[in-house]
């Protein structure tokens, strides 16, 4: 997925800064102010995005720690029994989730990129060889993978309007659920 938010946000900021804002009538202060706020918000998003996952993970980790401390405090008093049990259940669930969220999205993206590159190199090597059976097998493998991947790429971007028959595409959430 080459079309990621970072490049989209940067290009939007440039369009606003280079083209839209200079074209706004200087007497329209409201439009000028709103446009500058749009740029500021986009810039903030660009800074936030790389940290969003780690930020949320960090918060959940500290919340789980606090929850455990509160459980201990409430442990001795029976009147806290109900809320304490609910808190404990949520904290255990949060801790399990934290274990699953050990990997940063940037690492995930890095691994995707690396594997794409390595697969690409092998595809080139097989495709330029003269073993017809290997070529056919390698092609089938990549064509199958591409079918599944482009289906998801297209479903993710269906709102852009490139599809001849957009209704024929399954919703992206359904496609991603399949994999989960």
């Amino acid at each position, binding site marked *: *997925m*080459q*079309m990621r938010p970072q*490049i*989209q946000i*940067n*290009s*939007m900021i*440039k*369009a606003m800064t*280079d*083209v839209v804002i*200079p074209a706004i009538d200087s007497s329209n202060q409201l439009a000028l102010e709103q446009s500058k706020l749009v740029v500021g918000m986009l810039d903030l998003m660009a800074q936030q995005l790389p940290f969003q996952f780690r930020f949320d993970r960090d918060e959940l980790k500290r919340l789980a720690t606090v929850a455990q401390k509160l459980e201990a405090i409430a442990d001795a008093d029976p009147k806290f029994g109900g809320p304490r049990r609910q808190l404990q259940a949520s904290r255990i669930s949060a801790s399990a989730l934290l274990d699953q969220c050990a990997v940063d999205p940037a690492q995930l993206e890095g691994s*995707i*990129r690396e594997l*794409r*590159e390595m*697969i*690409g*190199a092998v*595809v*080139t090597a*097989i*495709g*330029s060889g003269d073993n017809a059976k290997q*070529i056919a097998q*390698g*092609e089938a493998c*990549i*064509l199958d*993978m*591409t*079918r599944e991947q*482009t*289906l998801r*790429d*297209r479903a993710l*971007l269906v709102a*852009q*309007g*490139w*599809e*001849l*028959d957009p209704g024929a595409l399954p919703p992206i959430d359904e496609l991603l659920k399949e994999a989960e």
Partner: protein
Amino acid sequence: MRPDKDRPSAEWIASLRRKFPTEPQIDQILTRKMERRAGPGYAPVSLDALKQGLHSLIGSQIQSRFSITNTRWLSGGASKIQMAFDLDWERPGVGRETTGMVLRMEPAESIVATSRVREFQLIRAVRDIVPVPPVFWFDANGEHLPYPALVYGMMPGVTKPSNTNTRVSGLGTLLAPQMREKLAPQFIEHLARIHSLDYRTADLTEFTAPAPGLQCAEWGVNWWERVWEEDSDEDIPMIRLAAAWLRRNMPVMDRPSIVHSDYRVGNFLFTEDDMRITALLDWELGRIGDRHQDIAWTTSRTFGGLDADGKTFLVCNLISEPAFYDAYEAAAGLPIDRRTVKWYQVYNNFSIAVLVYATGYRVARNGKTHQDVLVSWLMGIGGVVLEQMREQIEGGC
């Protein structure tokens, strides 16, 4: 070691030139692009600055008094900056008049690296056989303007009906049946005339015709695979597969023709009152090559749509595919080899995928164009193009 594509070394550029031999002039264009890659991004240019540059360019070409007025931005065109203006001048053979003109200038780095001189020569070559805008002057190396540029005449007409909404770049333009009936025959006739022209009679010094045989196809694959190497970020195995497939299945060119390379709805003007095509636009990717490249491009699923029955595919939303082929063969007197069309369908999708995924990414990331937001937007078509290419390769040719 992985090359730094944003600051390419001379050695790496040289290695790509050796690995991917192509038409010599295309090699020069791509080499120039890479040599300038590490330079600054695109800085907004004011209308006044462009007017000054134009004054310098036109002043170097004509001796009589002239004035430039009514400068204004034009939208459309993901690859070039376009400014309209009026020139009051002594037009050769006409006399004093005010001519509406368009300045077409490159940004710091375009989504497609091309040459203004080639564009100029190609339009001149076909001006007597098909409607094109008059081309006046070019600034080949940006001596007068901030970047290389071309000046051509403003033509009457629209690229899409005034009362319709379409996607960017004219893709998905919807046309009423009565419009199609009038536009389709002209559209096909003009393409046939371009392909039938003997290019050797034209002044096309900036072009090299490929040798008979496989060279046309090979130069083409090398061109786009080189661009993939130069510009891509994230690898795409399907691109690698397509490149190898294209090389294994290259067709023999039976007859070299002028190829427009972007002949489609959205790239011609027509007048709405009489439904007449007034100008064929966007010649920048043109080359001397195989006419099947244009036929495959024009009939691409990307540029057409479904008829009201929801089933019949309309080439460029104008005419059904079988009817298009029949009309073209009758008009051009040249056969269409369906296998070669299929090969060029894969080739064209390969080039689009390279442009949107690799060059589009690279130029937008480095802030090199006046339309980074549009270039980023266009990356979204990549999935559709890859899927078409997959289906075409799976279907064989």
